[in-house]
């Protein structure tokens, strides 16, 4: 842990800015007037106008300590938390019946969640998202690395170890794909280590290979098709997002290679849980959780026979895919054997 208080007091601003460019953001956030960067912050502030400081409710004493706190927060943001395992300890279903299960999931594992609409699949994803500790309606408990999660950790880890992807998500920023990836990488401070460019490039290429139709780094993220958006979100989750656990709520069929996408997340050593009605995704997972009446009714390991069935199902899927492609291209479907 760096003592930013001392660092800020000892260095001229120019040196501080060279090491921590994010300091510039801090000055912008406070709307500070231009400071003499040859001096330390405290000395430079002596030259700042009193009225101006008063106007913005600031004192000279506060600003260096606020900057120290800011740098502590910003540098902490870059360190994601590695997760070696996720454990789901059963609670109860809608009728109060005990689930009696304990499921241990390790990085690189894909688990699908199946069950009728309204059966409680999203509730299970919700329990994982908030790292439930027996205090949600299902009374389930979620352990990280085999241990209970303290209240403080639940808040501090919020949004940091669990990423979510769903059908309803869109890009809303007015940025190109390249700008968008750079901004995300910067927020994770991966840029500091200097390999951001390579990471962004890998991420972009991967998103393009997942997408049915290609796009350029200059495309606006808001102009991407549904499939391209999903592909970019998945590649970004795999390469740039710090979250160790990825929750997916049904991703659509069109324009993105779903199976390859899920495999990519698993290769990135993520723990992937995917709620789905799609037989290929359900069987493509290592295990599947069956939900009935709000509770986990079974956990099934995908058997060798099921994997063999999956190969057959993929052929059918491929046939449907080619049929769709032919129809879209204005062709006719006279002989299925040629597709």
């Amino acid at each position, binding site marked *: 842990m760096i003592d930013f208080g001392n660092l800020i007091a000892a260095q001229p601003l120019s040196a501080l800015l060279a090491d921590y460019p994010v300091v510039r953001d801090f000055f912008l956030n406070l709307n500070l007037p231009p400071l003499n960067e040859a001096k330390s912050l405290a000395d430079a502030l002596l030259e700042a106008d009193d009225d101006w400081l008063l106007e913005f409710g600031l004192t000279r004493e506060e600003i260096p300590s606020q900057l120290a706190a800011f740098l502590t927060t910003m540098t902490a943001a870059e360190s994601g938390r590695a997760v070696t395992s996720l454990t789901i300890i059963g609670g109860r279903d809608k009728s109060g019946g005990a689930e009696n299960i304990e499921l241990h999931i390790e990085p690189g594992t894909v688990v699908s969640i199946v069950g009728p609409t309204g059966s409680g699949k999203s509730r299970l994803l919700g329990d994982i998202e908030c790292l439930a500790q027996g205090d949600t309606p299902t009374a389930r408990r979620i352990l990280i690395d085999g241990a209970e999660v303290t209240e403080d950790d639940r*808040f501090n880890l919020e949004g940091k170890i669990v990423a979510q992807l769903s059908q309803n998500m869109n890009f*809303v920023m007015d940025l190109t794909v390249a700008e968008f990836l750079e901004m*995300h990488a910067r927020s994770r401070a991966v840029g500091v280590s200097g390999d951001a460019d390579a990471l962004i490039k890998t991420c972009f290429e991967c998103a393009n290979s997942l997408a049915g139709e290609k796009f350029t780094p200059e495309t606006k993220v808001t102009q991407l098709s549904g499939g391209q958006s999903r592909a970019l979100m998945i590649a970004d*989750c795999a390469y740039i997002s710090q979250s160790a656990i990825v929750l997916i709520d049904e991703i659509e069929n069109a324009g993105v290679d779903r199976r390859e996408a899920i495999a990519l997340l698993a290769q990135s050593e993520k723990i992937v849980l995917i709620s789905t009605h799609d037989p290929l995704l359900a069987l493509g997972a290592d295990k599947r959780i069956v939900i009935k009446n709000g509770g986990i009714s079974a956990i099934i390991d995908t058997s060798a026979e099921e994997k063999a069935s999956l190969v057959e199902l993929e052929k059918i899927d491929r046939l449907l895919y080619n049929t769709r492609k032919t129809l879209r291209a204005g062709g006719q479907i006279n002989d299925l054997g040629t597709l």
Partner: protein
Amino acid sequence: MKMITVAGPPSSGKTSVILRLAESLKLNIGVVKFDCLTSFDKARYKAAGIPVQIGLSGKFCPDHFFVNNVEGGVSWGLRNGIDVLITESAGLCNRCSPHITGITSVCVVDALSGVHTPRKIGPMLKFADIVVVTKGDIVSQAEREVFAWSVKQANGSAQVLSVNGITGQGAFMLSKKVLEAREITSLTDSRLRFTTPAAACAYCTGETRIGENYQMGMMRKMEYEI
């Protein structure tokens, strides 16, 4: 009685977050809604069976209006056996914040409002204990992460929570924080976390005409470039 202050830009989802929070808390909630000219939220609170008082600042500075009336809200809450009193302020400019030292403060921001918004909102976010991000379910994970980072830039010590105002996902975590709020019986001698603006000029008292001749009292002139 516990008390929290909730502030945020218009249409960021404050009322929805409070309604979902109320469902999660299962206590007697009372709301004092501070707004400027109109408020449409009374019906939503009534429908949820939540007692509500509406304060419209009208021609007065909304921030000053809040400070002048918030104590009355505490008395109202105590008289009515409220367990958790929530003030909801929509009618604030970005210059101000209704947050009070020692009172759990929440700022609600909308993930759709743009990634730099948290850095523009000012004291209402900067001095909040908890920043609730709404509408995160419809933006990408990456944008949520960048948005949270932007919040951290403006307020490094805040707890950032994502709450879905429609389904209530995340409201449960917010309710846990609210239950930690301090018990109060009065706000007298408490302090605001940030000053309200000075305002005692002709326009404060109803002047609408433009021109040097009508400008009296405390005011400031911009220095335009030539």
